[in-house]
């Protein structure tokens, strides 16, 4: 059986009813992953026998009546920038060649403690730097809806794996849109929680003040369940919010009447946005209005500065975060270096790909003597202005509704020669990372035959309302149930 897997909620009921075993599910997921891998290339590594063994244990628990959670025995995938104890983590980089983590990321550990079975580690842009999953040392992932197109990025492997029905849910990470944009491109649900909602312990840092772990799923309800499992305070992450995991599932009432949804003016007039994409978003807005939500136009006046702000802050943090890859304690080391300096330079030059080097250089530059105030400090000040934009807008409404990306999935290679054009594809997503607020992307139709994403942005810690709106929308529409044509 290598059929696409249904949603987590369906699988859970099948398991509970005894109509299927966890071992069958996990082996089906592995078989499907392997069959699609040559065309999709969603995975960096599959866990094969180890995953099957964990599934058998889940079945044994179930047999004893000791089911740990609704996730017990469910196959999942994890972006390969979150460490699993005793297993390799590559971040899709040559520089981590051979690295085996002796410890486990908190979010992964919580998912596994709930019984979920990680079947594999998914592909990404090297160190999560990119918007297409083309910057992987192991080759690009492809979009299940059109193999000539990018799945988005950087969590393209996780998005593609969920879209192709390999796994019902997967973990990604989002620094400037790396969950939401690939979710939109692949026609799945992707949630970037509030900064600090999910522990970053064990998430390999790209830009520490922006990075956040979150789930991909085929429905808002499944997303809610995964969030509830992985969220909540972690004493090992100083930036973790000291709040328990939100009770999102309870909030999924299907009712949005009385909620005020804000339409940020700037997101609908942006240059280069595909009118077809905007049309789908407006249709979704109309649907939500029919469901009883009130619409209101709002303004996020500093939106046009978000990309510049982001591409100063993120590379600056990255340049420092990536200094630890020095060939001393783990990972790649250049052969036969005569001196320490030679070893450092050759190791890092051989180990990092172009995009990573570009961002290290940019970040080093903006932090260096004489430029700090003009670039880095300035960006932190604009970040304050962006944050205030959101505070003001979200005082007047409950949720902001926008497109997730200005266009549908672009063709592989289309933007790789032009870094700035690639950066601009994050135009709708980076603000949420800069402001720390949660963001959710859900499928809302098609343009040019490719899925379109609707983005919902909310108040800090209010993932529940985002998921409630998404769930209500999904009860009234069927876009999220659409499947890519079976990959021949």
């Amino acid at each position, binding site marked *: 059986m290598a059929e696409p897997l249904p949603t987590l909620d369906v699988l859970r009921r099948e398991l509970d009813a005894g109509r299927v075993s966890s071992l069958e599910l996990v082996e089906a997921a592995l078989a499907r992953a392997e069959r699609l891998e040559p065309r999709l290339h969603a995975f960096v590594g599959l866990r094969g026998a180890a995953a099957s063994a964990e599934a058998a244990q889940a079945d044994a628990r179930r047999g004893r009546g000791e089911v740990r959670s609704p996730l017990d025995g469910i196959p999942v995938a994890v972006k390969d920038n979150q460490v699993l104890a005793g297993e390799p983590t590559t971040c899709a980089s040559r520089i*981590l060649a051979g690295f085996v983590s002796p*410890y486990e990321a908190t979010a992964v550990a919580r998912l596994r403690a709930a019984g979920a079975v990680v079947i594999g580690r998914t592909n990404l842009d090297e160190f999560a730097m990119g918007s297409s999953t083309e910057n992987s040392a192991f080759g690009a992932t492809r979009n299940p809806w059109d193999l000539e197109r990018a799945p988005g990025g950087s969590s393209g492997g996780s998005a593609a794996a969920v879209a192709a029905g390999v796994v019902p849910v997967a973990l990604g990470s989002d620094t400037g849109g790396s969950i939401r944009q690939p979710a939109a491109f692949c026609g799945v649900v992707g949630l970037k929680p509030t900064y600090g909602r999910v522990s970053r312990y064990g998430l390999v840092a790209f830009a520490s003040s922006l990075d956040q772990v979150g789930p991909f799923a085929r429905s808002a309800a499944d997303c809610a369940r995964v969030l509830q499992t992985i969220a909540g305070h972690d004493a090992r992450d100083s930036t973790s919010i000291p709040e328990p995991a939100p009770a999102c599932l309870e909030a999924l009432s299907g009712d949005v009447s009385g909620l005020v949804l804000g339409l940020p003016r700037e997101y609908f007039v942006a240059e280069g946005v595909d009118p077809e994409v905007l049309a789908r978003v407006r249709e979704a807005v109309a649907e939500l209005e029919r469901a009883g939500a009130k619409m209101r136009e709002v303004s996020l006046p500093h939106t046009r500065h978000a990309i510049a702000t982001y591409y100063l802050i993120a590379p600056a943090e990255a340049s420092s975060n990536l200094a*630890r890859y020095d060939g001393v304690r783990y990972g790649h080391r250049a052969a036969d270096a005569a001196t320490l300096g030679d070893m450092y330079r050759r190791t890092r030059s051989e180990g990092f790909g172009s995009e990573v080097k570009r961002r290290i250089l940019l970040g080093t530059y903006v932090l260096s003597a004489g430029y700090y105030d003009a670039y880095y400090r300035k960006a932190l000040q604009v970040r304050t202005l962006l944050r205030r934009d959101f505070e003001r807008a979200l005082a007047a409404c409950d949720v902001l509704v926008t497109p997730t990306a200005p266009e549908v999935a672009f063709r592989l290679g289309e933007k790789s020669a032009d870094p700035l054009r690639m950066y601009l594809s994050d135009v709708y997503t980076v603000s949420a990372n800069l402001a720390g607020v949660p963001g959710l992307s859900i499928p809302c139709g098609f343009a040019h035959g490719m899925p379109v994403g609707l983005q919902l942005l909310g108040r800090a810690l209010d993932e529940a309302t985002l998921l409630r709106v998404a769930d209500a929308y999904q009860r009234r529409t069927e876009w999220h149930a659409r499947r890519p044509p079976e990959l021949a």
Partner: protein
Amino acid sequence: MSAAPHPRYEVVIGLEVHVQLRTESKLFCGCAVRYGEDPNHHACPVCLALPGALPVLNRQAVELALRAALAAHCTVQGRSVFARKNYFYPDLPKGYQISQYEEPLATGGFLDVELDGEGGTQRVRLTRIHMEEDAGKSIHDRAVAGQDGSHVDLNRAGVPLLEIVSEPDLRSPEQAGAYLRALRQLLRYVDVSDADLEKGHFRCDANLSLRPRGASELGIRTELKNLNSFRFVEGALRAEIERQAERLDAGERVVQATLLYDPATERTRVMRVKENADDYRYFPDPDLIPLEIESEALERARAALPELPEARRRRLAEAYELSAYDARQLTESRALADFFEAAARAHGNPKTVANWVLRDVLQALKERSGEIDATALAPEALVGLVRLVEKGKVTASNARPLVAELMQRGGDPQALVRERGLEAVADTGLLEGAVDEVLAAHPEMLERLRAGEEKILNFLMGQVMRRTRGKANPAAVRDILNRRLKD
């Protein structure tokens, strides 16, 4: 030990001291702070800088830092920020050191330093005190690491340090030495650090420049690194003053550089010329939240501060009528001062106790290493011994060596005196016998004593002591001799 000032140049010195805070675990992870073990025995994902690991600040390190800042009269900042200092070196696993830069824990402050032999004090202003993590250890020694490489041990990586930066207020190597001794004493007083120099708990870098006497502008300074004993600091500064003065005398410029001191040749040697300023690309560490110290926490810390050395010195001098010098000696460490005060209270006559502590306790301490509270000698035991002497149960000269013994094994002084057979002989018959024997052996002496030669009394006393193996009660012997004199 005040050396003559330089005839032509005024010396300007500022010191940066790194002090290891006395914690059980590292600054940002739970690894033990421990030395002398095999490499990488105290390491975890955080201090190894594994991908994905994150720092969490140690509460005790903050409390100790706060205590030090208050003891040094600093202004504690309500908000301080941990920043990353970026540079590559194998003992710096993250490729950056977490330190405080633009917004340190504390600013201002001062230390009043007593200058040896001059009686006066000098106020040395502090620029700042901040927290940071230590680096690991690179071992370049060929015997260990071989010809073509170096070894890296991260046991020390992440150990909490306090960096204490002084203003350039010091004017001589001797003042620098006195400042460092006072700083070390203060930190030990408030229990912030063991400040053990041999273990590298207290490390000093110095900035030094010369300017022609009377000039107001500062000269170009050089930096002396890793001065790990007080003797080295003074030696290195003297050598560097000489080196800079020679250059200036020859009409050359001093080049801004980092130097190392070689104690064998007593010379400084340029390690690195600073062509352009280092570019450490400091920025706030996004993995850590700014540290906020609330005023209540600050007041609690202030209230919990023990009496500081200066204040204690003054109080002891006044309360016990001690000389400034004696008071200084007795307050050298908090443990010694505590010991003295406990003994003085138990005994009732502080002067007597001070004499015993200053002479016998310090003497015995010098012969071993460590503080009084690390010995087995309790203040009550010293008082017991002193009382035995006062009651004539043991002679002072027999009692003094017992101080060291009591430090070693502790216990009751009376039992020790008995065990050693040192109980003073007060038996008049026995003593009269001994006196008569001495007088019989030296018949002329009694005559000379009668003739008024006072020192003869001491000679005769000594002879009697020899015969009684020092156990004779001196007062009783003197009585007998006086009687014989009148006979």
